[in-house]
């Protein structure tokens, strides 16, 4: 089991790499391995080519006892009210806490196909406004009214209210200054893609706040065993690069 001083999340397999008939089974299998190993949760990421992250998360919740889906949330995909409604519905139906991985970006073609040409830094401004609405709705203290730049809500209330212990964990993905500023503003865990650790011994730009990284690990008792396994899984030759099972 992972040490309680750290929070470890695995990642759900992407639907693009599986036979559709076997995918649901694969998701539940990986979720159960993750739960047994002591992971806090499992990232369910999204892009235009993948199955819906919220519905895949339902497979995870129904197939495990404690594992928390870490659902990727992109503002172009749904209204903030719908995100809050999803979170409180999971709480009500399953008593399970959800983590939200707030994502401002994505593949450029995916965003443009949805008519979104918002520039990079303004996407983080939008993410802060969007996430603030979700947080206020889930806090349930009073109806939410906001005439924002990107969203408008008027005396909006979320029902049913969420128990305080199931209030979602909040992550913001982004390695830019705009991304880190968004995480600080939302008091969220800032998730970055790590550079070699010798370059990462200080918090970025001296910024405080909770931090995390997304990283793959292939580790074994010996160096040789680990590198052999790594090269077997990710061959560097062209044949390996084209293998359909590469994910």
């Amino acid at each position, binding site marked *: 089991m992972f040490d309680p001083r750290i929070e470890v999340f695995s*990642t759900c397999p992407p639907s693009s790499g599986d036979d559709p008939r076997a995918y649901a089974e694969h998701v539940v299998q990986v979720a159960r391995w993750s739960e047994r190993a002591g*992971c806090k949760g499992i990232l369910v990421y999204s892009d235009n080519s993948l199955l819906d992250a919220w519905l895949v998360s339902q497979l995870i919740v129904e197939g495990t006892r404690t594992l928390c889906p870490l659902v990727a949330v992109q503002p172009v995909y749904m209204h903030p009210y719908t995100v809050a409604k999803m979170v409180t519905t999971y709480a009500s139906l399953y008593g399970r806490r959800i983590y939200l991985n707030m994502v401002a970006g994505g593949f450029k073609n995916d965003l443009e196909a949805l008519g979104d040409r918002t520039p*990079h830094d303004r996407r983080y401004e939008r993410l802060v406004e969007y996430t603030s609405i979700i947080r206020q709705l889930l806090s349930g203290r009073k109806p939410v009214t906001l005439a924002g730049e990107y969203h408008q809500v008027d005396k909006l209330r979320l029902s049913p209210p969420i128990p305080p212990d199931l209030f979602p964990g909040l992550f913001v993905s982004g390695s830019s200054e705009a991304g880190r500023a968004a995480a600080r503003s939302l008091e969220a865990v800032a998730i970055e893609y790590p550079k070699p650790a010798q370059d990462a011994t200080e918090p970025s730009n001296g910024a405080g706040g909770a931090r995390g990284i997304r*990283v793959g690990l292939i580790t074994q008792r010996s160096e040789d065993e680990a590198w052999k396994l790594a090269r077997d899984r990710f061959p560097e030759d062209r044949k390996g690069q084209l293998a359909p099972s590469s994910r």
Partner: protein
Amino acid sequence: MKVSDSVWHGQLSGMEQTADGSPYWMVPFQNYKTMCPYLVGSHERVGAELARYLSSGCRTFILDVPREPGDLEQTEAAFERALDQ
């Protein structure tokens, strides 16, 4: 081809493989769309690298998709080394 304008994607795409002996490995990101870099090596070597991230304030780690349950057991061993340092 899928293209992202995110800063991290640009940073990682422009990064060369680090020197021999480093556990930091970019091949899965560059060739397999894993969307994250990898650390590869013994529990001690990977644990030492993880310890540096811990000392920089990281407490949350999002791993890639496990291929088999043993992957997570091996990962736990590396984190144990990291937290012992």
